[in-house]
Structures are given as structure tokens and as C-alpha cells.
């Protein structure tokens, strides 16, 4: 299975007569994009705004971020089972508008959407301050049930990403990223698997694998290329800091790093997808099953990532314990909730086997975000989103808020360079 990502570098985004890419600028026909999204009659009002890195712009409340892409060759379609036909992803050529992103904006339930600052002190916490963003501001029809609302917003984002991605179909890429799990001849290299649990706790906490709601899967083996090619879609509004957006899935940093060192320092043997469900029986079953798969494929070491916090800490610890009990060495990636003063214990659960942990930062740490010239969306919900509190929004539009509210600030796929140290 050989996947080529044809990278087309995007350095600016502008409205234009025609949706196209010229000289590194993505032009968007606003009317056409709105028309496309409005086809879903569950959305009453749709607007599109553009923003670029460095601008004095705050986007809020954000649900998902998606990288625009197009399949150039290979039989499958992007986001299969959701907006694409069913087919196995991960082969052929996919062109990518690298540096551009669709950002879906609008309140769904209100707690779990996040914010992106395009400049200022908040910008360094979010990778999406570095992308040229096409923000879709989406309002539902009156009385739409939350489940349907979430789905409408999710589909709108994916459709828009595919619509923009089409502009890249016939472009010559600036560079080519090739992903292929070639057999490793050096048998002394350690065999390493990646265990990737997906949040699947119900409305606003769901993830889709080939269109299947992840809470209904038994853990399964997947080729890393499928993940990098759109097999996983976020339907998820848990705290902004540590949910995996669809963008994160498409650019999974653990897979990228394991590929980079494949055949040199290690032998990357595969990815086990699991879920993060709401009952203890499910947690036991999924961690049993995922651990067994890791053993079955002959892993000697495994990276385990997490999504969300609190009860998913239990899944993380169960996976760690059970995989270590098979004699397989593990490293975990998690964020911390150590309180605003950093003085509290960071996790809800712990096992002694978890002796190798990567911390991607304390999500409770508070940051001052200055007012911005332009707001995409609105700030009204700042006090109730996860990470906000009464009084966190000042009258001038400045925020004093936990980094928990910033999209991707403590991504537990290890996307960023933040960590927390013990002082």
C-alpha cells in the first residue's frame, strides 16, 4: 500500500470569482461555497469568513478543523461512509492544500467548542493559527435536535473541504510525501505498534471510522496510510485542547514519526484503533481486545495516545497495564489537569506500569488573551466553554482563560511542542 501526498503549499486565502489556486493563493467563490453548504436544509444561515496567520482575529466557538484534499488516483473517495463512497483508502495519490484549513464555527451545545487566535500569545498554542483559514459560520434551523445539529455541521465542514480540495486535482505538487510500509530487512530493529483510541462517548464526543460510529467497533487493525488518507473523521466537541480534529487525524504525528524512523531505528508494524466508551464493561472489553491485537501482530513496543481526559485516563491506564503484561514496552502520551496553580495531581487514574509518559502540557494553565480587532463567530459563550469561568471575558473582549479552551493546545497525539515540567 503506497500513498503519495502531493503537497500544494498555500500561503494566502482570498475571495475570488472562481474557486481556484494560483501562485500559492487559494481563491474562494464565497457564493458558491455558501450555496453548497446551504444544500443541507438543517442549516438556516451560513456565512464564510477568511483569516490568515498573524491577523488580529479570534475565531470562536470552533467545532472542527479539516484540511482540504482531493483524491487524484486510487479507487476510494475521501471521508468514506460519511460523504464518500465506501472503499479502502491509503493508496494512490491524494493532493493536499497544505497551509489551508476549513474551520467550522457555531455554537452546538456550548461547552465544548474552542477558540483560535491568529496572533498574540494564544497563537503559539494552536497549530491552526498557522493555517490560512476558511471559516464556515453555521446556524441551525430553529428547534433542530443536538444530534442532527452536530451532524449537519460535521457534514458541512467535510463537504467544504472536498470542494476546496478539488482545486488541487490537476495541480503539480510542490513536494511529494510518500508513505509505504516497506518490509524491514534488519531483524534487530524493534517491532513497534501504535495504539490509537478514539473518543466515542455519545453526542458531541464521537468519532467515525469509515463512517462507523467508533463506539460500535471492536478494536481493529488498520494500515497507517488509511488514517493519513481520511478514514477517521471527528464528530467531536470535547474540550478544545485535547480533542483530535479531523485535521489532526489526517496529519497524525505519531504515524508520521514512526514512518520517519521506519527501517532506520524501528520496524513500524501497524496501527490498532480502539475506542473510549462510557461503560466499564466496554472499557475492559476494548482494552483487552486492543492489547491482544498488539500482541498478535508481534509488537515489542507500543505508543499509546489518548483523546479527552478524566474517564479516558482509565482506558489509557488499562491499555498500558494490559499491553505491558504481555511483555510489550509502552510509552503513553497524555495531557495534564493539574489545576490552575499546577499543584494538583494531573490524572484521574494511574497504574505503576505507566513509567514512560509524555506530557503535552497542563490544560488548566491560565493565559491572558488580549482583545482582537475582528471576531469570527462570537465571544458570548466564553464563560461557559470548558476552560472558561465567570469573569473570564473582560468588557474590551480580552480573555483570561485556561488553555483548555484553545483548539489543539494539548493535543495528545503529540502534535505540538508543549510539555509540563515539575517545578
Amino acid at each position, binding site marked *: 500500500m503506497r500513498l503519495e501526498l502531493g503537497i500544494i503549499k498555500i500561503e494566502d486565502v482570498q475571495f475570488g470569482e472562481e474557486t481556484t489556486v494560483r501562485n500559492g493563493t487559494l481563491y474562494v467563490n464565497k457564493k458558491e461555497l455558501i450555496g453548497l453548504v446551504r444544500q443541507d436544509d438543517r442549516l438556516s444561515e451560513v456565512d464564510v469568513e477568511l483569516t490568515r496567520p498573524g491577523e488580529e482575529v479570534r475565531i470562536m466557538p470552533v467545532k472542527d478543523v479539516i484540511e482540504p484534499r482531493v483524491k487524484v488516483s486510487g479507487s476510494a473517495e475521501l471521508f468514506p461512509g460519511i460523504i464518500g463512497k465506501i472503499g479502502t483508502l491509503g493508496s494512490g495519490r491524494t493532493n493536499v492544500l497544505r497551509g489551508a484549513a476549513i474551520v467550522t464555527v457555531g455554537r452546538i451545545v456550548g*461547552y*465544548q467548542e474552542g477558540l483560535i487566535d491568529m496572533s498574540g500569545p494564544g497563537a503559539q498554542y494552536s497549530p491552526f493559527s498557522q493555517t490560512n483559514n476558511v471559516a464556515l459560520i453555521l446556524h441551525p434551523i430553529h428547534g433542530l435536535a443536538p*444530534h442532527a445539529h452536530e451532524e449537519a455541521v460535521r457534514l458541512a465542514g467535510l463537504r467544504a473541504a472536498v470542494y476546496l480540495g478539488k482545486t488541487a486535482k490537476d495541480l503539480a505538487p510542490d513536494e511529494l510525501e510518500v508513505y509505504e510500509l516497506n518490509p524491514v530487512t534488519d531483524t534487530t530493529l*524493534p517491532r513497534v505498534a501504535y495504539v490509537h483510541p478514539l473518543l466515542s*462517548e*455519545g453526542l*458531541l*464526543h464521537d468519532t467515525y471510522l469509515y463512517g462507523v460510529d467508533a463506539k460500535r467497533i471492536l478494536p481493529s487493525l488498520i494500515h497507517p496510510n488509511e488514517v493519513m488518507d481520511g478514514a477517521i473523521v471527528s464528530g467531536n466537541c470535547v474540550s478544545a485542547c485535547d480533542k483530535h480534529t479531523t485535521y489532526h487525524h489526517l496529519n497524525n*504525528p*505519531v504515524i508520521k*514519526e514512526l514512518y520517519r*524512523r521506519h527501517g532506520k*531505528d*524501528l520496524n513500524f508494524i501497524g496501527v490498532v484503533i480502539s475506542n473510549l466508551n462510557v461503560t466499564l464493561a466496554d472499557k475492559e472489553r476494548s482494552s483487552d481486545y486492543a492489547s491482544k491485537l498488539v500482541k498478535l501482530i508481534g509488537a515489542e*513496543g507500543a*505508543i499509546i495516545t489518548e483523546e479527552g481526559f*478524566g474517564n479516558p485516563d482509565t482506558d489509557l491506564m488499562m491499555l498500558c497495564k494490559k499491553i505491558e503484561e504481555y511483555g510489550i*514496552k*509502552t*510509552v503513553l*502520551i497524555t495531557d*495534564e489537569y*493539574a*489545576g490552575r*496553580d499546577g*499543584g*494538583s*495531581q*494531573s*490524572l484521574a487514574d*494511574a497504574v*505503576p506500569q505507566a*513509567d*514512560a*509518559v*509524555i*506530557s*503535552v*502540557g*497542563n490544560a*488548566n*494553565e491560565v493565559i491572558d488573551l488580549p482583545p482582537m480587532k475582528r471576531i469570527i463567530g462570537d465571544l458570548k459563550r466564553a*464563560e*461557559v466553554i*470548558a*476552560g*472558561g*469561568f*465567570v469573569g473570564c471575558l473582560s468588557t474590551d473582549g480580552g480573555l483570561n482563560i485556561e*488553555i*483548555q479552551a484553545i483548539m489543539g493546545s494539548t493535543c495528545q497525539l503529540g*502534535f*505540538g*511542542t*508543549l*510539555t*509540563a*515540567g*515539575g*517545578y
Partner: protein
Amino acid sequence: MAEKKYRVVHYLNQFYAGIGGEEKADIPPLIKEGAVGPGRPLQQALGEEGEIVATVVCGDSYFAENIEAAAESVVEPVSRYKPDVFVAGPAFNAGRYGIACGASCSAVSKKLGIPVITAMYKENPALELYRKEVYIIPSADSVRGMAEVIPRMASFVRKLGLRQEVGLPEADGYFPRGIRVNQFVGRTGAERAVDMLLSKLRGEPFQTEYPMPTFERVPPSPVVKELHSATIALVTSGGIVPLGNPDRIEAASASKFAEYNIAGVHDLTPDAYQTCHGGYDPVYANNDPDRVLPLDAMRALEKDGTIGKLYDHYYVTVGNATSIANAQKFGEVIAEKLKAADVDGVILTST
């Protein structure tokens, strides 16, 4: 150097200040101008940049018998000297002296907002009491380690005096305070994870970025004996609140709990109650809040005489990214209130 020297006030016990031994251990705080006892070599090590302007002295027994009051009484004389840094000890392995050093540093830091530092032996009981609030650097267990620890204390005092940033405990040589502080490092979490895994697989040393916490244990409470005449209370971390969340408990990282009267309420209905918890799908709890706070069931058991009475108030917070330290604090206050109200048993529900 025309620059202003930073000002230091030093704390010593009666013994190191040369006042006397155990027979003088009950003297109340007094102040001496300039450096005294171990303050002299400390001053020497500080050189021209900083000056020990005064030394506070207090008897060990006096301090240990009135820890809070003694610490308080140290603050005022210290403030008169307008110091930039407060330093205490070294206390080595002396228990009462260690507590005096820790408590005076803690009080000065809280009241005057200036940086503080002390030194003691790793097994000094005061270490666990004060390491969270005070920079404590390691010393030997007895006065024989004086010459060795003074230069390290001096360099730390200098760092604080010159308002330089304090680095990680390993780099700057102090006991970790257990405070988690964010920082950007050059490499992504994924890169660090693969590195760490390779080290672990090769049997090479590696350092976890988060050592597993240890959790406190409490002894089990005694049984509720006469259930049919007992008062039982409900407490939840599931965020069930009156509609509109009147006390505005946060959806995550709760900074408070609330108490609501449920006398006369027989069922939690969506027109009067809701969840304000931001960590789970709220649809089910909003449709029927009894699914999280089982009030209807408790009323049924009260009616049929299984329990004597459901307590007239319930307590609620949100257990979502809420720090354990906050949760502990809420728990202590709620427990006191329940005890004062003669509640016999508590059912705590969580989501």
C-alpha cells in the same frame, strides 16, 4: 557598580544566632541588624551584589508551639526592612527549626509577596509541609554540611535577588515543589514519545515526563446502623443544578460547589433542573436529572420507611477537569456541613 544592592533578611533560631541553646528555645522573635552567625559566610558568598540587612531570630520551642502566630509575628519586622529576598536556615535535620524556616518563609512569601528560600535535609519533616510553597534546597543532615550548603544557598538567593528565572529543580538544585508548569520544548510530543520508547526498548535510561501520582487513602467510615431512622444525603459531581445554573458552576475546572434545598421536591424534572457538566453527553441527564441525582428513588425509600429521611439539601459540583486539590477542598467543607447537620450517611454519585 552603581547599581542598587538587593536586600536580604535572614531567619535563624536562637542557637545559630548565638543567643543560647535549649534553655533559650522559648524566646519570641527579635531582630538584629545585619548578618549574624551563618549569615556572615552567606554575606561573604553574596559579595557586593546583595546585602543581608537584618536577621530575625526566634526560639525553636516558641515557634513550634505557636506556628501560625509565630510566623505572623515574623512578617511585620521583616517588612520594615523592605527586603527583596527572605532566606531561612539552613535547618539541616532539626525538626522544629525546619518547621520555623518553612513556616516563616511561607508567611513572608504570602504576606509580602517576595521570593523566599530555605535549606534542609531531605528527611526533615518540614520538607513535605512546605516544599509546595517554598524553594527548599537540600543540605546535609547536620551542621557539618554548613560550608557545603552556604555557597548553594547564596547562588539561589542571588538568582532570586536579581529576579532571574528559576529553572527546573534538577538544574537549579532545589526540591521539586510538585508544581506543573507548561513550557514549549523544541520537539513535538510524538517525536519525544518515539525517542522514549526506543530508549525503553534498548534498556537505556529515560525520564518520564510525568511520574505517576500517589493518591491519598482514608479509613472507611463506620456503618449506618439504624437505616430506617437515618438521615441520608445526596452529593454529586455530575453537575445537576436548578435550571439556569444560578451559581454558575463551571462546565469544567470547577472552582466551587453549590448547595440546594430539595425539601418538598419529589422528582427532578427537566423544567426545573439540568446538568451544567461539560464532560459528558448532557441529553440524558437533561431529560431526566434523576439519572444522575437519584432523588425520586430516595423519596420512594423515604416514603416506604427504608430510610428515615432524605436530607433537605444536596451538594453539587462538576467533576470535569476539576483539580484534585479543589475537589478535596470541596469534600472537606461539604463533609463538615453534613456532620453539623447530623447526616448519618451520604450517597455520592459521579458521572
